[in-house]
């Protein structure tokens, strides 16, 4: 069930209606049932995967919690009788047990994800090797990727690691854990919530709050505006350019690159706006996933502001543990010996960074495009970090001040850099992506822009006008957001102004939205990850 389908809107109306009608103590149960109904629409067989993940995470979480309790109880009861060494040995034994359970849970659930998502990718690569040796190729397997598997697997893995780290107690009610994993607004494209962030408001009893409901509804509308008016309109031109690299090179690659940046932003942030808005209508707080990323002045800042919950997930559950794990500490030691203190201490950081970005790329999709995209991101981040002192010297030498013009330059530079990397997301393989990127500098066909070529990309002049206005609105809202919530600002205005804004927003979606017959219904880009 797509967020943009009529079926979903009807489903949502029924759920929200019931949510505030039934006794409050049943609210979370209703959300659980609704989430499973929502998931059922993606295919009943998909339910098996998510159920397996929920059940395995629940029982292993409980096991980890019980082991911890058992340890605490044993140590408390035998406080006087056990020596320090005995206590330490007991703790080590329990820790080892807990570690084994954790590893089992991680391997089991990430294994499901890996098999479903990466089997055919692996087969394709094995076949490439087989072809070199003229061996028979393996056949591909027909595995359908369950909706949102990357998102819910990451949520559960975050949960189980936190329980292992005794950050919080395991959830004793399997229904509540199931709701945390499957909460329908964020099931298909995140944000990747943490249990301790979401659970409190998710399981709480909620009274109807007109302000929260209204704010949530406005956010949902804003999400639909981004998705239907901008993303689903501009996608036509993006696909025309990127699916026909023989026809559209040079300046068209730049156009496609910028258009894709707009599409991806409107699509992904639009989807998250809908998610957070729905949650808010239900009185539930979901963490923000974006913080005006296109206003970032550097790539590091960009990744702090784009898909925040994914970035922090990789930081907390991969980067940090990897940086301090034993093998990495050994590498650090030996590299310091070999290359000296200055360079040696950076080796583990480089390795951890590149591992994180390799995994991030792979998480985004089972193709070399994403792997290369991830590694390039890591590379650019490391290079820019290394060059920082050089930049500082340069700025000092040429007296570059932190003026508006310079900040604007930094923002545009970061936008173009990130858009360039995303070319890998658009073309069908790495080779074409690099070739197309190169053609921007080797083929000078800017004159084609003056001969109406933009109108041959599947969009007419009225579409471009709508897009232009849509993007101006998008930028304006982002600018206003810098000084606080736009909805708060609107709510302080007289009723006539407030209502005019709401009505305009609603009808701009209804009239100018790219939906229905004549438009392909486009999945949210991040649904496939």
């Amino acid at each position: 069930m797509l967020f943009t389908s009529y079926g979903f809107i009807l489903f949502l109306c029924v759920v929200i209606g019931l949510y505030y009608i039934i006794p409050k103590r049943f609210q979370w149960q209703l959300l659980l049932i609704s989430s499973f109904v929502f998931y059922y629409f993606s295919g009943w067989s998909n339910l098996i995967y998510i159920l397996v993940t929920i059940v395995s995470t629940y029982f292993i979480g409980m096991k980890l919690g019980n082991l911890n309790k058992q340890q605490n109880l044993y140590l408390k009861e035998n406080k006087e009788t056990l020596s320090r060494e005995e206590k330490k040995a007991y703790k080590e034994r329990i820790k080892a047990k807990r570690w084994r359970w954790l590893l089992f849970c991680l391997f089991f659930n990430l294994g499901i994800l890996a098999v479903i998502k990466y089997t055919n990718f692996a087969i394709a690569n094995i076949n490439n090797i087989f072809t070199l040796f003229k061996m028979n190729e393996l056949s591909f397997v027909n595995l359908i990727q369950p909706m949102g598997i990357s998102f819910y697997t990451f949520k559960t893995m975050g949960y189980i690691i936190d329980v292992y780290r005794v950050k919080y107690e395991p959830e004793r009610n399997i229904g509540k854990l199931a709701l945390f994993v499957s909460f329908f607004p964020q099931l298909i494209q995140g944000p990747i919530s943490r249990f301790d962030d979401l659970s409190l408001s998710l399981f709480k009893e909620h009274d109807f709050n007109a302000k929260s409901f209204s704010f949530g509804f406005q956010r949902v509308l804003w999400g639909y505006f981004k998705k239907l008016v901008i993303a689903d309109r501009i996608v036509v031109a993006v696909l025309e350019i990127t699916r026909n690299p023989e026809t559209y090179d040079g300046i068209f690659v730049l156009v496609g690159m910028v258009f894709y940046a707009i599409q991806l932003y409107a699509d992904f942030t639009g989807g998250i706006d809908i998610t957070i808005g729905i949650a808010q209508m239900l009185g539930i707080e979901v963490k923000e996933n974006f913080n005006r990323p296109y206003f970032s002045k550097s790539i590091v800042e960009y990744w702090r502001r784009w898909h925040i919950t994914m970035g922090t997930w990789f930081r907390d559950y991969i980067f940090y543990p990897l940086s301090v794990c034993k093998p990495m500490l050994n590498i650090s030691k030996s590299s310091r010996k070999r290359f000296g203190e200055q360079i040696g201490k950076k080796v583990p950081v480089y390795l951890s960074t590149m591992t994180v970005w390799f995994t991030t790329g792979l998480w985004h999709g089972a193709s070399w495009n994403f792997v290369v995209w991830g590694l390039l991101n890591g590379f650019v981040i490391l290079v820019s970090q290394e060059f920082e002192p050089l930049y500082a010297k340069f700025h000092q030498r040429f007296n570059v001040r932190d003026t508006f013009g310079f900040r604007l330059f930094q923002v545009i530079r970061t936008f173009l850099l990130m858009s360039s990397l995303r070319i890998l997301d658009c073309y069908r393989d790495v080779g074409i992506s690099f070739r197309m990127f190169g053609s921007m500098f080797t083929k000078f066909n800017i004159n084609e822009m003056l001969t109406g070529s933009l109108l041959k990309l599947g969009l007419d002049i009225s579409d471009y006008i709508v897009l232009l206005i849509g993007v101006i609105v998008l930028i304006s809202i982002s600018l206003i957001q810098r000084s606080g919530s736009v909805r708060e600002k609107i709510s302080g205005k007289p009723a006539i102004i407030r209502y005019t804004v709401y009505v305009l927003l609603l009808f701009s979606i209804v009239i100018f939205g790219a939906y229905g017959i004549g438009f392909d219904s486009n999945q949210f880009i991040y649904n496939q990850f």
Partner: protein
Amino acid sequence: MRKKKIISFVILILVIVTLALLLQKLLMPKYMTKIVEGALIAEYYDEKNKNHDVIFIGDCEVYENLSPITLWEEYGITSYIRGSAQQLIWHSYYILEDTLKYEKPDVVVFSVLSMMYDTPQKEAYNRMSIDGLPLSLTKMKLAKASMLPEEDLITYIFPLLRFHSRWNELSEEDFKYWFKKDQIAHNGYLMRVDVKPASSFPKPRKLADYKFGDICYEYLDKIVKLCKDNDIELVLLKAPSLYPHWYEEWDSQIVDYAEKNGLLYINMLNHLDEIGLDFNTDTYDAGLHLNLSGAEKSSVFLGRILQTEFNLSDKRQDKYLKAVWKEKADAYYEMEADQYRELEEYGYLLKFNMKRSEENNQ
């Protein structure tokens, strides 16, 4: 404070509903020129005198080939044609069901050509057959039965969701007919006075299977039952159009069905001489559809059969009906005169040849 908030919220909802209705009316196709067939279904609901002896249901075979005005003038029979472009059998069934909410005719005449289609054909035809119906359960059932996979039921409840993208193709016509439309047809009859003699048609190709689809029989059974339940005589009709080809095998299936169900079946193709049709002068598109003279001849022929077979009384002396139908006939003859005038002046009919008239204006 609370009261004020509630009032302003109600006002907001009212404004939204009003705007949505206004925009919907503006953005929906008006069907006032070129594809005027789209306006036929809705026109019935503006009809003040919904009390007819005969109701015709079907596709262009009825709304282009039969004239209710002729039936009135020749036999005093009151009739209405509930037809639209490529009206499939399930369209006809539900449109009849809807019609019976307003009136109980003595006779229903169903055009059997649509038996050849057992699947929905085009979304555009669905819209023309369905959008004109007022919102009701019948309309929803009709939409459900007719929809192509890419269609959504909700767009038949709120057509704005279907036609919203017309904002960039709005024309003068959309604003001109925003609130009030012209009358296009004469009790459902779409008049054309121009002539295009019938030429040769491609040889009918052999079909792999001549049997009408099960779904068509299912709906035909439903039409029979609906008429029986309402004590209405049902007539099956094949109008005298030369194309699409009406196969012998199709004809014999209808003959058998009519016999089995005790229905009158009239295949007008078997009576071309008796009707007096001359396909050099009585068709406007080379035999696919009849023009005014052809439709009037057909109506004279059919009216005679209907009157004798079903004892339909001659109502021409009824004062009220006389006045009503005089008004209708005046409009009919006025349009006829206008069309002849246009033919003389331009050589073609403006309403049906918008492109040509636009080119000439440039």
